[in-house]
């Protein structure tokens, strides 16, 4: 049984790891050359084409962010770095450049809750894998306890422990997926976008957001999005003024 658990764990980790490998792209190399030559417009264009071709790699978004940064388009630069980090939360270069870009743009950030901060020790994917492993260990222990009278007590204790880990992992996955870095995370790409109390340009202003500021989209109505804003505010913004991080 132990061997079976090992095999299952190994398989799950294999599944959890990236499954596809991007082919060496001439266009990526060309864009890099354009960047090195200082043609940031051409570089960003080529990177964007790769994005449209669904070559979603952390390095591509990171390089794209750099190209936008050089064009002084800090909103899109921050968006690209955020996308790189969404694909690889431990991407060190993207982390570093994101901080630089935020400093330049004076962008506002959403505050993660204390619980989110605590749970950010692992990514949602890692929690999901842990939940799956814990679930199967629990199931195997229960089945084994049914057939093995002698070790029943130990097996039941193990199944309870596994079930607890499963529940905690599911909760962590759910909480992080709905939190600051969840699917609703978006970055303001327009310069000084105004969040308003209602879906009208004449409505009272809640907050003016510099480009690159984080928001969390809660709802969409036509050309307007309702979003959680920094400083624990909420307001309506034009949909075109922000882009979602997760594609």
């Amino acid at each position: 049984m132990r061997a079976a658990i090992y095999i299952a764990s190994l398989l799950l980790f294999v599944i959890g790891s990236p499954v596809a490998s991007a082919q060496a792209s001439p266009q990526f190399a060309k864009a890099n050359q354009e960047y090195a030559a200082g043609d940031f417009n051409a570089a960003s264009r080529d990177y964007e084409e790769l994005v449209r071709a669904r070559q979603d790699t952390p390095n591509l978004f990171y390089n794209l962010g750099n190209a936008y940064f050089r064009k002084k388009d800090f909103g899109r630069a921050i968006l690209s770095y955020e996308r790189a980090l969404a694909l690889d939360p431990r991407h060190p270069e993207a982390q570093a450049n994101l901080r630089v870009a935020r400093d330049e743009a004076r962008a506002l950030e959403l505050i993660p809750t204390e619980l989110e901060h605590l749970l950010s020790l692992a990514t949602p994917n890692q929690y999901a894998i842990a939940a799956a492993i814990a679930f199967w260990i629990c199931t195997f222990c229960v089945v084994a306890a049914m057939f093995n009278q002698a070790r029943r007590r130990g097996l039941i204790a193990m199944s309870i422990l596994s079930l607890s880990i499963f529940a905690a992992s599911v909760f962590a996955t759910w909480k992080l997926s709905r939190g600051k870095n969840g699917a609703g995370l978006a970055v303001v790409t327009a310069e000084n976008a105004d969040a308003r109390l209602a879906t009208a340009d004449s409505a009272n202003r809640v907050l003016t957001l510099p480009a690159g500021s984080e928001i969390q989209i809660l709802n969409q109505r036509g050309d307007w999005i309702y979003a959680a804003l920094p400083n624990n505010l909420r307001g309506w913004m034009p949909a075109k003024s922000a882009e979602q991080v997760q594609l």
Partner: protein
Amino acid sequence: MSIHKRYLGIILVLALSLAASRRGFAASPSVTAVLSNSETAVGETVQLEIKVSGANSANVPQEISIDGLQIQQTATSRQFEMRNFDVSSSVTYNYTILPLRSGKFKIPSQTVRIGNDSLRTPEFVLNVTSGSSGSAGATQRGQAAPAASASKLAFAELVVAKKDAYLGEMVPAEIRLGFDPRAHGRLEEGPELSGQGFTTQKLQQPRETMETIGGRTYQVYTFKTAISPARAGKFEIGPVQAKAVVLLPRRPSAPRINRPRSPFDLFNMDDPFSDPFFSDPFGSMGERTELPIRSETATLNVKPLPPNAPQNFSGAIGSFSMTVDAKPKNVQVGDPITITATVSGRGNFDRMNGPALEDEHGWHKYPPSSKFKQDDDVGISGEKTFETVLAPNEKKTAVPPLSFAYFDPVKENYVTLRSDPVPIQVEGGAAPAVAAASAASVVPAPTPATPAPSAKPADILYQLNDLGRVRSFARIYARSTFWIAQLVPLFVLLGFSGWKIRRAKIDNREARRVAGLQQESAELLRKLRRSKLSPQEYFSNASRVARVKTALAKNIDPNAVDAETVARTFDLDENERARLRTLFERTDELRYSGTGNGDKALARDDREEVLNLLESLRA
């Protein structure tokens, strides 16, 4: 039962009739008078009660004329009392006395005529002081003329605190609606304050009080608001208009020509509460009537603000004070500092902008946020807190002073409040970007919802030449591969379960076989103990028992067991081995030779010997 009741009713009627007939022979009529209070104040009423006993009616004065007092008969009530079939009646006349001025008044004896008799009430002395009765002050407040005297059931009053104001200044105002409690007034619409050239704060929930105005008690609803003039000049505020529903007594169809005028009917109008309905509310029904209420207007003279306004004046008018604080006080270049400026006092907080930074050089400033905490009902008094985030772009030692300008309508000039510089410590030097990048384990610390605080690196990092592996934004649990992968442990689990179940079944079959052999052995031994078996049967069964026991001990097929196997299995000595061999030989001999056939029984000693041998076979 019903007959008894009828008799009882007749007796009661007769008794009452007798009592009534005796009334004429009862004690002669008498008069008593009571003054509810001998001390009162101007405007506060007291009651005079004249009670005539022993008569159904009496002729009493409708009015008592005394200089300085207004005395009016307001109600009449009758009482009937029966004691030991002796019925007595009395009639009480109520007078309301309204003192018009202070002093010591003597209410002289009054003549009461009962038929041909003439009786007199005692004399009273009433001391009236000049003490304030809430009405006098209330009606004089503000500029609007009190409307209480104009209408007897309800009134509206607009009280504006000032005659002169500046453009944009918040002027407190009160709207007062009063109802005679007997009319059970209920507000249907309004109150609304009409007029142009000013804005008003939303009316709050009214305060309800009982007040005496003009000697009359009113239930007064006071709505507080504030008026803010939108243009200069002299203009009228009001009137206040409202619509109420009041309860009025039904008017009798015949005109009451002889009824005297009410003492409160100053304008010679009918006082509806002089109606007997109010002294005997069950005597007739009231009717609800819609009553429009309207106040006098108030005049406000609005002056424009002086022209020499400071540069950072944003329209605040009133009287204010300001405190400023900054947190944190020890930061790096680029870190956010929250400046909290609290402006408190009295004025138009809704037009107030935050204090301005006197020197913004070297600072990056974000739009301020503000919150207002009001101390009163209409938001004229309170404190407004402005939070501004500043980020130093260079080394600084203090947050520059903040200035706030407002116009003081009392001093009639502009005032500029200026805060002291708040000392802070700004550490310079930006951490290089490479350092940040090389620390792969560095996770951006959770920051407040302010600009990203960090040491500002010089530049972004290099481009990466490796495109890397394509990844998905979708969470792992949203991918089909994740769920397909779950089939692997599922199949392993199913295989494990199947194997375990099969093992259990096999174990069960073996158990059944063992049980069958044990049963067979026991059954054969029981047969061997019987004496009726033929020698062939006896030896055959005995050898079978030996084989079964050996099979159980060694978990083998009993048919494959011979004498030697039995001996080895149970580790028999030579004597037992010889006996066992003999047993097996005799069995074969009897089975195959047929010499032992017949009904000749085996000797008892032989049987005992065989049985002892078999019982000695124990593993």
